[in-house]
């Protein structure tokens, strides 16, 4: 059995890099330090992967050689007038670099999955900017951590433990102790009520003060965790304070906080159902911290008012810097969606939705973003890398995608790959192939190769490079 240390987990934007992997007979048999999601990936990846590339012939997907699949893909792309190249958030930066070159060569549209998750965040950042940092900065300094519309316990399970409240920093100690104290407080309460119920033979209710800041068990110096969400998430359960907002009212709440932070009075008693007193307390908490961080997730970017929501959050944090140190960071989902934005930007100037049809990069989300192009039925071929738009896109967009010739490069079998005309089962980046990925805070890490891929499964980068060579061969005769 081979033991490989400090492996990077290629699953979510936390990109934990302290994973230990045990390999036997070219198979991962055990992992340490991952969360359950990461563990499942390492142990179960590629279970349904096809052994060879597939090409659709007479309506049926048939096994083919890599060469045949490359040739067919190159034909599709060269015959197309306006192909889209989509995905890119679960592959390596090296592959993305080739993907951009290919998109430029065929004069197509290239877009990544931020178009359907943090697209609005990016547009807002281009409008107002963003004060942010790397995650270690928070581990060392943040004494107030807010997760807004994001539930790290489910989506980025080790985020809190590695980077924020439960991590141990130079100037800030872990919040574990206070959490345990709070927890035992709760248990005591539960036990007492149980006993009381038994004795009194009726249900005892403790009045729940929904919107009041609960008294802290923690001392002043300890970090505080605040969760704002539409429902009580798992993260909310460990929070020092949970503020429940009504769906689609984030904007009002953020704007109200902004006014309070800027010392403006609110002339109302409540905002979106939340008493102003509560908001005042939260605003005070924000102003009085030494170093605050606001993480926001798709709960904010994909709820009503998308762009305005993020705009308000960014502006709130910017304004807070007049009073204290306060930063903000989007919680990115796919492990390399940040890398996709980064590479797109250095090669073309723009983070997603780039149109090469005029021979130079053009960017106009809403016009040059894939969903809109598909909806308008403008493209005539597609290439999808490590993504499943058929499940995620609106039906009309997905329909255009599958009605046209479609190439899919993916280690997994997905609804999209099943509808494709050419399918490349590829190597798992970060398990079967090396490559660079960017953590959600823009820290680049080198993903490792711990096992050999099956013989007919090449890394994305290699497949794309071969298609690009073939395209050039066809075009240049």
């Amino acid at each position: 059995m081979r033991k490989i240390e400090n492996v990077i987990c290629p699953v979510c934007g936390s990109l934990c890099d302290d994973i230990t992997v045990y390999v036997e007979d070219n198979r991962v048999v055990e992992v340490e330090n991952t969360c359950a999601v990461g563990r499942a990936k390492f142990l179960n990846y590629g279970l349904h992967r096809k052994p060879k590339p597939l090409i659709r012939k007479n309506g049926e997907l048939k096994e083919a050689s890599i060469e045949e699949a490359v040739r067919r893909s190159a034909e599709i792309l060269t015959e197309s007038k306006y192909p889209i190249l989509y995905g890119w958030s679960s592959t390596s930066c090296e592959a993305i670099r080739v993907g951009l070159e290919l998109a430029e060569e065929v004069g197509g549209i290239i877009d990544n999955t931020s178009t359907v998750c943090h697209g609005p965040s990016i547009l807002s950042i281009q409008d107002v900017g963003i004060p942010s940092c790397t995650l270690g900065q928070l581990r060392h300094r943040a004494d107030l951590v807010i997760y807004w519309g994001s539930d790290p316990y489910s989506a980025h399970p080790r985020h809190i433990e590695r980077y924020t409240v439960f991590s141990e920093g130079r100037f800030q100690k872990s919040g574990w102790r206070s959490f345990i104290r709070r927890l035992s407080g709760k248990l005591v309460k539960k036990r007492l009520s149980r006993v009381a119920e038994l004795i009194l033979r009726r249900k005892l209710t403790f009045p729940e003060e929904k919107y009041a800041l609960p008294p802290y068990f923690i001392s002043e110096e300890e970090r505080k965790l605040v969760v704002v969400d539409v429902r009580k998430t798992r993260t909310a359960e460990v929070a020092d304070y949970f503020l429940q907002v009504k769906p689609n009212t984030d904007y009002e709440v953020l704007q109200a906080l902004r006014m309070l932070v800027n010392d403006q009075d609110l002339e109302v008693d409540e905002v979106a159902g939340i008493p102003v007193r509560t908001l005042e307390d939260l605003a005070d908490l924000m102003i009085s911290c030494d170093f605050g961080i606001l993480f926001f997730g798709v709960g904010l970017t994909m709820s009503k008012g998308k762009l305005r929501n993020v705009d308000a959050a960014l502006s709130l944090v910017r304004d807070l810097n007049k009073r204290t140190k306060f930063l903000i960071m989007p919680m990115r989902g796919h492990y390399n969606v940040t890398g996709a934005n980064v590479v797109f930007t250095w090669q073309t100037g723009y983070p997603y939705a780039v149109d090469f049809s005029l021979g130079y990069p053009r960017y106009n989300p809403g016009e040059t973003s894939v969903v809109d192009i598909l909806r308008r039925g403008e493209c005539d071929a597609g290439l999808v890398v490590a993504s499943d738009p058929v499940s995620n896109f609106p039906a009309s967009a997905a329909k255009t995608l599958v009605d046209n010739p479609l190439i899919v490069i993916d280690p997994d079998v997905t609804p999209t790959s099943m509808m494709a005309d050419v399918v490349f089962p590829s190597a798992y980046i970060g398990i079967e192939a090396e490559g660079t990925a960017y953590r959600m805070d823009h820290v680049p890490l080198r993903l490792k190769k711990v096992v050999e891929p099956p013989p007919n499964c090449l890394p994305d980068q290699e497949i794309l490079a071969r298609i690009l060579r073939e395209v050039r061969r066809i075009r240049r005769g």
Partner: protein
Amino acid sequence: MALLIRNGYVYDPMNGIDGEKMDILVEGGKIVDKLKSAEYEVIDASGMIVMPGGVDIHSHIAGSEVNAGRLLRPEDHAKDVELKTEITRSGVGYSVPSTFTTGYRYAKMGYTTVMNPSMPPLEAKHTHEELCDTPIIDKATYPLLGDWWFVLEYLRDGKIEECALHVAWMLYATKGYAIKLVNPGGLEAWGFGRNVRDIDDPVPYFNVTPREIIRGLCKVNKLLHLPHTIHVHTNNLGKPGNYETTLQTMKCVEDLSSGDKPCIHITHCQFSAFKGVDWREFYSGAEDIAKYVNFHKHVTIDMGQVIFTDTTTMTADGPFQYILHELTGNKWVNHDVETETSSGIVPFRYRRRSYVHSIQWCIGLELALLIRDPWRIFLTTDHPNAGPFTSYPQVIGWLISRKAREETLSKLNKRARETALLPSIDREYSLYEVAIATRAGQARALGLKDKGHLGVGGDADIAIYDVDPRKIDPSTQYDEYVKAFSKAAYTIKEGEIVVRNGEVVKVLDGKTYWVKVSSNSEYEVSEDMKRRFTEYWTVQFDNYPVSEAYLKRSKPVQVESEV
């Protein structure tokens, strides 16, 4: 392919050649005295200027802050696009061009070597990935080390040798070339939203002063025998009255120089040469700085010349960028990097009508004209902070021609025009001096032995400009020179013609220079690092270094250290 460059007017200051008509021979990527092969291409350079390829000591072209600048400015790109051709990739400008465009545009101006001056060590892979996508030019990058916790702690404890060994490790781990300090101490303080006041204001929680950091790293630089000096962006940059901080900074290492060898480089000095108490009572401190530099050989400087245009400011100086955001109300990006540094980005427009901006414009040129020794003042715009690098030809115009300066001066803010010293300065750079300020001097300051000259054995990086110095007077017909320097007739990189008539004709990959220090110490850096690594950073020790695989063409420079 061998080359014979015939009959050009050659400016090669390192070899004392000042516009002599002569031939230059190239073979195997080097300058040679005789061609071995019988087959060679002849370039007729008669009536043209021949110079070593341009060298840029300070230009932000790659890495996380540059890329954040790109992301922030779609409006900047849309107005300046580059089409794909058979051999070149497409891209965008203007102030923060995409990587390919950056490489091509430098080559088109006859520049062949560019230093990227600001790299957060933790994000070094990013910088190198971008440098790989920056074609043609050779490059190197400076890790930001002035606020690194290891440095602060070792210097606080007076452990210079340990500090030196860790710096050597960092140069290796990040594939870096020189020690960069930005507002030393101030960036750590910015971690809590604060700053340091002057070079004797201790860094909060670390009990070490900027002066100790500057002196300490200057000593480290000497111990390690690094090819370049420490590269310093001063404390208080961008604040009225900061010329005093700059003088103190230069003075504080006066005793550390040996002989005539420089031991400190003050970068984009324009931003650090402000006199006065606020933005109304604001004057040029260039004269004081120039006076000091003229009498002290341990300092080199680059200009950071302001260009009147719309640009994007980006530095590691988080607090400075925040102030800029507060002053302008423009959008603002901040990016603090754990244990190491910070950075900020704010779009900015320099306006002729503004008194302050006009004075800033004067300061850069005053520095260049008042400092007598051209080997110690270099042409930069701190790209893109004071203006994009594509404006260099314009700056050359101002240096070689008083008339060119007057032309611009006449459009400046009236009060600035009346109070500035610049209008009374007559000096005009000769082409020989231009060659020093744009290549020879920079190559020497960087310790790049094969660059910046056309002597036998040097790299065949050559720029040929189509303007006849015997027929066209720089002083009066400066615009002919501006034109010629914008579009090289030929740029030759490692013996290959990469640009003809200002157009890229061949694309090749440049080298990345980095310093490999060999030490004779038994002290184990990595053990000490490993112990504290997981406490200090959120990545593992093993995953931190940049492997050589990240460099398309790795060019390690070996140095023997004293430790």
